[in-house]
């Protein structure tokens, strides 16, 4: 579905990504792990179009999307849950969800999607009219994910969903990611917490200092001694 081929991304003179390639197939959950500052967020931002790759190509469903403006990438079915559970603080929970279906493709189903989401996330239903900024960290993360689901995406990208959340809440978040996996969404997940991420992964990439260092399925990651000590704390 998504093929990223040898992209380089720069912030000014600083090279954040160098020759990174990855693939996400339909219905697959792919994770990208690595230390802080490795360039994982930059990778997602480049795919979405918030950053431009200087070289390389990004193809989604056989269409070249590298260089497209973000709203056009979203139109084609890629959505991103940004880092830190960013929601629109002064919009109500309901309105936040509505923005999710701004995309003309998603709009006709908006009402139905919202009902479905309220049954999946009853806490959000309770807080329907509350300003999103008054929700707790975990609730905001849920809202951020739910909002993405409103846009009927084909590929969901998540940027560090566990960041800043208490362990119990992190478990809840990953339960939902499992749920989305069951629903058949293709997922590209970027995480510092390799332990949790590997449990939902079909395939994994390891990025360090902007470069792809290792890739493999869950088993090969589990068995690799360097990764075990460096990232899985074993």
């Amino acid at each position, binding site marked *: 579905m998504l093929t990223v081929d040898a992209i380089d991304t720069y912030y000014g003179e600083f090279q954040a990504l160098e020759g990174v390639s990855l693939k996400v197939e339909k219905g697959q959950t792919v994770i990208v792990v690595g230390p802080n500052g490795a360039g994982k967020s930059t990778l997602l931002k480049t795919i*979405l179009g*918030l950053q431009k790759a200087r070289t390389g190509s990004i193809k989604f469903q056989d269409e070249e999307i590298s260089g497209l*403006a*973000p*709203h056009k990438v*979203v*139109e084609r079915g890629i*959505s*991103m849950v*940004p880092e830190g559970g*960013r*929601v*629109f*603080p*002064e*919009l109500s929970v309901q*309105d936040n969800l*509505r*923005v*999710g279906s*701004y*995309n003309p493709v998603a*709009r006709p189903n908006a009402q139905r999607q919202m009902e479905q989401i309220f049954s999946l996330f009853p806490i959000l239903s309770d807080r329907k009219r509350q300003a999103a900024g008054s929700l707790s960290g975990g609730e905001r993360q849920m809202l951020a994910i739910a*909002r993405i689901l409103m*846009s009927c995406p084909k590929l969901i990208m998540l940027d560090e969903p566990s960041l800043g959340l208490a362990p119990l809440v992190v478990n809840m978040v990953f339960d939902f990611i499992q749920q989305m996996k069951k629903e058949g969404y293709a997922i590209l997940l970027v995480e510092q917490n390799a332990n949790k991420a590997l449990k939902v992964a079909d395939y994994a990439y390891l990025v360090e200092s902007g470069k792809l260092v290792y890739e493999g399925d869950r088993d090969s990651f589990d068995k690799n001694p360097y990764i075990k000590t460096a990232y899985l704390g074993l």
Partner: protein
Amino acid sequence: MLEELLMAFINGILLGGVLALLAFGLNLIFGVVKIIHMAYGQFVMLGFYFIYYFHTAWHMPLLVAMGAGIVVMGLLGMLVQLLIINPLLNAPRLNQLLALASLIIVLENLAQVIWGADYRGIPISMPIIQFGDIFIRSSYLLAFLGAIATLGILYLFLHKTYFGLAIRSVAQDVEIAKGMGINPKVIYYITLAAGGALTGVVAAFFIPIYTVHPHFGASFTLMAFVIVVFGGMGNLMGGFISAFIIGVVTSITAVLTSTEVADILALVMFILMMMVRPQGILGAKA
């Protein structure tokens, strides 16, 4: 004396309503595009001139002329977005301010060249309503009611439509808004069009009340800023309340002393507010 004060109070409220429209436009533009439209009062001046021109030179019926004026001002807003604001979106704030300040010079002199420096107006006599010893001009009352109605429509637009939702999202977080498939440039154009059209609406309400001249906009621009910052920059509700407060205070002070002192008082209130609570009455939103 009491009747005079009461009338000043009422006039302050009535005109406050129209000032609230101006504050709304400025706040909308600042909240969404993050730019201070320095030449907003001059837009009102131009709106007035256009309506005058359409009615007297092209012989459009007055209401049609007003409609046309509103549309033209909306288009002018978009033109300013295209030519001035877009190139400066990432420029230092000072450059943005100075660019729009240059626009003031261009617009005022454009008006002077096209229509001359004399006062122009459309003489419309409207009845005066009397309550005992209190006289209220129906033109003021109409302007007030029209302003409130317009604000109501704008509120509905912002809260009940997808465009309104998009505008509010871009104002709060343009990055995630992009991630939702919203194209910020389109939203900026809509915002500037709405802001421009609003000046046309204000100009329409002013037709039975004032006569226009090229420097007509200057006093409104400053007052509009005072109101907007006093209420909290980018805060639509703050601007609304602030417009009435400033409107009433200046109106009553003008009756008790003079218009200059009233203006000075408004400015001093503004300066004090900045020092005590810079985010304004209800808090800034940008």
